[in-house]
């Protein structure tokens, strides 16, 4: 979890930002005292009513509202203050039974998820501490403005006995004092308002972000899934290789051996026929070689072994039917599984772009970044018609799985009319430093 500083960064204080924070604070305060409190009461009542049976049906609904509400706050946190709060919820099991049994199942699942209870606790904290922190920014501005107005004549209206802060409003002199205090408040608001909004989100984060336990549980689940996929796909791959060898090179070698046997028998009786068979045997061996070469390319491309990912990608780009502009910035070589997964992912994405996008140009960008942990980043962009998605064809899902076993991710952005951009990220370290030859 990291806090990405975007809006509430170390920039100069500005009136605009301070006012914006005040408006955000006001909105958050309303959400906290209104929605959070209401949902807290609803949840408690609904859970209490489970005993009577009614709660069984209301609770899942109320809890889904709670989650929507919490998710909205997570979204605002990242948009307004750059505070990242990942959702902690366990994914719902897919095979829920229908009817009443399903509802009960769902209820039990929700109640077993610790995130549910933390959400409810947060509702209460949000309605108190969250409300107060959120209210500060607009209140300071409003109170500061009131102080200025005091000087401008409001002191006449308020009359004796009104306290502005620690100042008793009695006349113009005290009005000026009020204005000074108001100005001081406004100046303070300029500095602290964005930080107060951020503080509000940090309070929320302490409760509605995944706990360490939840994070680990999720990680274990993900590892279990990806390991399963990896084992599955490598078994399928081995099966494919076996079949290719069996039907291809192996069969050709058998045919060649047979031809050679016949040639041995014929060489004295019928030299012309023997010669013909020899030519056949030679072409069989050439075909066997071609097949083996294709097979090897599919297992581990020779350029990748010889030159590493950068040059292998360049070689791949040269094989494409459409022009591919390659931009590689890699300080060295990666572990073989990473290079191999990245290579095949690039190959699949480029092939898709060439086949389906109708693009006239593709840009391939490969670089390694150290900013947020060592990360290999690959972006493939084309100027085609767009509308690509992960679910069209099995290829992309296969890539996703393969990258997944390395903790890598794949994202596709492809609006109708394009352009399509496929980005991949694989966490990895450089194992051999030095340029990969270019």
């Amino acid at each position: 979890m990291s806090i990405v500083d975007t809006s509430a960064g170390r920039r100069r204080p500005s009136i605009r930002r301070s006012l914006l924070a005040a408006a955000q604070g006001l909105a958050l305060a309303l959400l906290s005292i209104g929605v959070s409190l209401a949902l807290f009461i609803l949840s408690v009542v609904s859970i209490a009513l489970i005993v009577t049976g009614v709660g069984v049906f209301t609770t899942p609904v109320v809890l889904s509202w709670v989650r929507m509400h919490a998710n909205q706050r997570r979204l605002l946190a990242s948009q307004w203050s750059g505070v990242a709060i990942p959702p902690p919820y366990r994914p719902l099991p897919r095979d829920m039974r229908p009817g009443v049994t399903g509802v009960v199942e769902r209820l039990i699942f929700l109640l077993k998820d610790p995130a549910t209870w933390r959400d409810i606790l947060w509702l209460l904290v949000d309605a108190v501490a969250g409300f107060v922190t959120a209210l500060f920014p607009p209140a300071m501005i409003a109170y500061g403005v009131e102080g200025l107005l005091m000087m401008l004549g409001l002191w006449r209206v308020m009359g004796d006995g009104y306290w502005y802060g620690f100042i008793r409003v009695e006349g113009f002199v005290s009005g000026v004092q009020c204005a000074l205090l108001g100005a001081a408040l406004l100046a303070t608001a300029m500095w602290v308002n964005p930080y107060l909004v951020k503080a509000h989100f940090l309070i929320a984060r302490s409760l509605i972000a995944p706990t360490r336990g939840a994070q680990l549980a999720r990680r274990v689940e993900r590892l279990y899934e990806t390991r399963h996929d990896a084992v599955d796909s490598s078994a399928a791959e081995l099966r494919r290789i076996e079949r290719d060898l069996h039907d291809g090179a192996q069969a050709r070698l058998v045919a060649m051996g047979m031809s050679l046997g016949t040639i041995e028998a014929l060489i004295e009786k019928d030299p012309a026929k023997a010669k013909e068979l020899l030519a056949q045997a030679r072409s069989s061996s050439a075909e066997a070689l071609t097949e083996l070469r294709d097979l090897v390319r599919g297992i581990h491309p020779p350029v990748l072994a010889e030159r590493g990912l950068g040059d292998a990608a360049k070689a791949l780009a040269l094989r494409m039917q459409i022009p591919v502009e390659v931009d590689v910035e890699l300080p060295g070589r990666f572990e073989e599984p990473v290079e191999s997964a990245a290579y095949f992912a690039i190959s699949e994405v480029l092939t898709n772009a060439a086949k389906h996008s109708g693009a006239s140009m593709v840009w391939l960008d490969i670089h390694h970044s150290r900013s947020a942990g060592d990360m290999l980043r690959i972006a493939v962009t084309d100027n085609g018609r767009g509308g690509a998605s992960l679910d069209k064809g099995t290829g992309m899902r296969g890539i996703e799985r393969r990258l997944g076993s390395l903790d890598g991710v794949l994202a596709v952005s492809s609006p109708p009319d394009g352009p399509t951009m496929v980005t991949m990220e694989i966490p990895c370290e450089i194992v051999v430093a030095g340029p990969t030859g270019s």
Partner: protein
Amino acid sequence: MRVVLAEDLFLLRDGLVRMLEAYEFEIAAAVDNGPELTRALAELQPDVAVVDVRLPPSFSDEGLQCALEARRNRPGLPVLVLSQHVEQLYARELLADGNGGVGYLLKDRVFDVEQFIDAVRRVASGGTAMDPQVIQQLLSRRAQDKPMANLTAREKEVMELMAQGRSNAAIAAQLFITERAVAKHTSNIFGKLRLPPSDDDNRRVLAVLAYLDRG
């Protein structure tokens, strides 16, 4: 003609030595690793080197790197590179210095002994021998290009063979046409692709390859 040969698999190396000796090449050295190849190329000054891309100790593209290095030290040193797979990337690197005397062939091509020996001789005399697979990849990529689309089917055939480095006589023999016809086709090709005409065979081949590899 003195040959330095680098191939790490004993059977293939032995076979190549026998084949080259049968065609009256003199084997100056037959080595099985990169460092020895570098030394042999520097010390023995062969007329041509036949080199496998992948060699010990690193089993990466050691052979290719040695060959490129030797050509940097002695520009135009004829080198024929053999590989289990061909890559345009490698072909481009070999052709980059524009000096000629370069060959790049699949290992399968040794099956056709005559043609292989012809390729070795061609490279030794400063010509070019590019694997048909490389040329086909280049051609298929450029098939949609405007100037290329203007070529007739026959002209494309001639261009393909020319890009492989074949002489006019060899092209004529393969396509069953006269050498005069080949010469006419080549001048048409150069006209349509707007390449500067040249009488020198090697220059012409390099010009065509450079054209195909552009962009």
